């Protein structure tokens, strides 16, 4: 996988730098689309028609663009969260659960207390971030203290969150909306809802928050002391320890930041989209897909943003594609999986298109701390 050199890109050769970073992901996307079109041909569809419908459903009308942006927002935030964790040497597969917890925390604040307009929204968003941060900090703490690998513990916390929340909005659950026949919570008060950017549309202010978050994460990682510590722990925990960095604290802190981003994503979903409540089936899949977004974006905030918009576009356009050409929306998941494969194994792309590897790029080394040593 292409891992950019740990320093922030210097402004001297920005265009050239962007081009080299972007060529592999672009080719990976292209190759994935090519392969998926084979699946379409086999099931009797014209791939050109299908992809055109996809593009139109994503960008063709104002409604389409709005859908793309709305769907991209949680991808941006969750992708940032995963990228941040990666930079810190951690694999946060628990995004799914952190999104849930963030949604639930935000919804709870949103419907159970009454606060003046702007304050209510801010408090609800913060609740989401705190919820996500705490939920991620648990596996983080276990890893720091006992070495328990976060890959397994975060998956476990995902399932725990899912089941507990299912109970909470289930038949006799404490968060179940009264008189509702489906598992859902009450809607949040108007004072807690995200304002719309374009009236009479679905476009809410969440996209602004997501883009802001990208800038903040960039600044955090490469321009601050905390970011230096996070990156150093991720690049070489032994050297970090020797440099005086508290590795255990950083593991927990990085997971917490990562979870906060996921929690924010979940909060924005409930506070920005009608009917402004939480139900089952909400946000499912963002957790894993955001891994693909992060890797496709070279785990860099700006790349992640672009990749998230692409994934949002694919999700937004898929419905139109299914309507027109009968290709099931699930093909998008396969496309996304293939994109991830090609980006992760960029040597495949390199050998197909004959691109040489540059000296300072190398594989991300997450496997270092697997065997109980560290």
């Amino acid at each position, binding site marked *: 996988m292409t891992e950019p050199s*740990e320093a922030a890109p210097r402004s001297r050769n920005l265009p050239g730098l962007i081009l080299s970073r972007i060529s592999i992901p672009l080719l990976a996307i292209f190759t994935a689309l090519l392969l998926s079109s084979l699946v379409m041909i086999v099931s009797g569809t014209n791939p050109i028609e299908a992809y055109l419908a996809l593009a139109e459903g994503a960008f063709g009308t104002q409604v389409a663009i709005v859908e793309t942006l709305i769907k991209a927002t949680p991808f941006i935030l969750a992708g940032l969260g995963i990228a941040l964790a990666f930079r810190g040497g951690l694999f946060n597969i628990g995004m799914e659960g952190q999104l849930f917890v963030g949604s639930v925390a935000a919804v709870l604040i949103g419907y159970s207390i009454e606060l003046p307009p702007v304050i209510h929204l801010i408090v609800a968003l913060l609740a989401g971030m705190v919820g996500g941060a705490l939920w991620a900090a648990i596996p983080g703490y276990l890893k720091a203290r006992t070495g328990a690998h976060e890959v397994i513990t975060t998956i476990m916390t995902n399932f725990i969150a899912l089941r507990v929340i299912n109970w909470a909005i289930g038949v006799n659950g404490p968060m179940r909306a009264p008189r509702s026949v489906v598992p859902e919570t009450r809607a949040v008060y108007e004072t807690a809802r995200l304002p719309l950017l374009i009236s009479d549309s679905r476009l809410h202010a969440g996209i602004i928050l997501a883009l802001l978050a990208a800038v903040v994460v960039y600044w955090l990682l490469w321009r*601050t*002391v905390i970011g230096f510590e996070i990156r150093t722990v991720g*690049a070489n925990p032994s050297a970090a320890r020797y440099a*005086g960095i508290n590795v255990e604290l950083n593991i927990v802190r990085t997971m917490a930041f990562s979870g906060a981003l996921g929690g924010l994503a979940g909060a924005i979903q409930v506070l920005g989209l009608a009917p402004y409540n939480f139900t089952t089936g909400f946000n499912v899949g963002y957790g894993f897909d955001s891994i693909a977004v992060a890797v496709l974006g070279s785990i860099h905030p700006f790349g992640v943003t672009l990749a998230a918009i692409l994934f949002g576009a694919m999700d937004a356009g898929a419905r139109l594609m299914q309507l027109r050409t009968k290709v099931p929306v699930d093909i998008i998941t396969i496309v996304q999986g293939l994109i991830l494969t090609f980006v992760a194994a960029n040597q495949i792309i390199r050998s197909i298109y004959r691109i040489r590897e540059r*000296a*300072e790029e190398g594989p991300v080394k997450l496997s270092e701390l697997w065997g109980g040593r560290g």
Partner: protein
Amino acid sequence: MTPEALRVRGITKRFPGVVANDNIDFALAQGEIHALLGENGAGKTTLMNVVYGLYKPDEGQIFVKGDPVEIQGPKEALARGIGMVHQHFMLIPVMTVAENLMLGHEITTGLRLGPLAKVDRRRVSKEITDLASRYGLEVDPEAHVHQLSVGEQQRVEIVKALYRGAEVLILDEPTAVLTPQETEDLFAVMRSLIEQGKSIIFITHKLKEVLAIATRITVLRDGKVVGTTEPSKTTEAELARMMVGREVLLRVEKKPAQPGGQVLIVEDLQVMDARERTVVRGVSFSVRAGEVLGIAGVQGNGQAELVEALTGLTPVVAGKIRLMGREVTHARPRIFTETGAAHVPEDRHKHGLVLAYPVDENLILQTYYLAPFASGFNINPKAVDANARRLVREFDVRTPSIETPAGSLSGGNQQKVIVARELSREVHLLIANQPTRGLDVGSIEYIHHRIIEKRDEGVAVLLVSSELEEILNLSDRIAVMYGGEILAVIPAEQATAERVGLLMAGVRETPAELIPA
């Protein structure tokens, strides 16, 4: 006339950016010990890896007993009677000696199930014991390798080669991990093997050993053969000149020490390793400003854990550490750094550098949070930049730019980055742990020079090294560590290789021999 045991002609091996072996001609006569001498990076190990089949040569031919051969891999090398004892043992610690020896050639019994047949442990054990006693080497087939000492493991490696029918034995830097006495034992084994009809290639960079044991000596430099000679016809100085291509200062010029106050005081220190065994048992010593205290000892006697305790990386079980008068026994690494300790670590890739980081970020690895590099939350890229440019110039670090990742630099330049970083702070104590391991002669000279320079500026220097020459060369006082204890501390004038060597092997001195330091 007996045919040569082994000959290589015109061997060339290229790696990206370097020609490791350049048209090498080399011959091993039957029944001789032929030393292959050269500094780190000269191409000795590469050449032997070619002979052993681990590398494919780009050009050239290999002859065994006069017949041209193509060696595709270690299996064929062994089939042709070529065995290799590597510098870093190729033994699997969790397995027994017998399992290690039969690996790849397992003898099975019972049903013929191929890879799933039952392994015949008893027969293998017996074969090993018989073989070992024939050559006067003692090994216990059922011992687990991780329980054996380094010298014993080396014996196992030799038996492993013999078990596979090696007639030619290649020993790659075998004495790097041995005490002087163990080295003598090894030489005795080598002579016995020669008497039994084997031939040996002995790779090393140690001049004294070569003169002591070799029948003939071939010197490699920069991938080429410089010349072949015999011990009786040459001297250390001449060999060193052949190895490096210019006059080499075998000893560093230094003025007598002017020691000042005590900078580091260690009392009764006890440290445990990762497996909860006590590896530093009640060590006490002190280092004064303006002197070099060298800790000699074969690796594995607690030095690594001692240094880690002295830099806050490993917790201390008992005892005290005082640095500049301040109690730092249980302090974190940052406190040590802030109190004026500098540390050049043993493993530069693990502790010393972040290989993925550019040079400028590596140079602020400990100071990133301090002014002028940081103000509040933020980092100042300009200050980082300026600092890097200054240090690269001052310490002569050869790098394409300050943004080059440290992993792209040569070993010597990587070490210079570490030294530059450590010495650019205000330093009262410099701990240098194996500072010149794996470096070329030029870098070694540079680092030694810097150490003495700091010592003359009044810095207290603690030098830990398993290279006895380096210790004897640089130290004002020498402490010897064995089995987690300091057996003695002697002034440099009274230290000889023999005396220190005995201590390194654990032979305690009688009170009459001990002179308080």
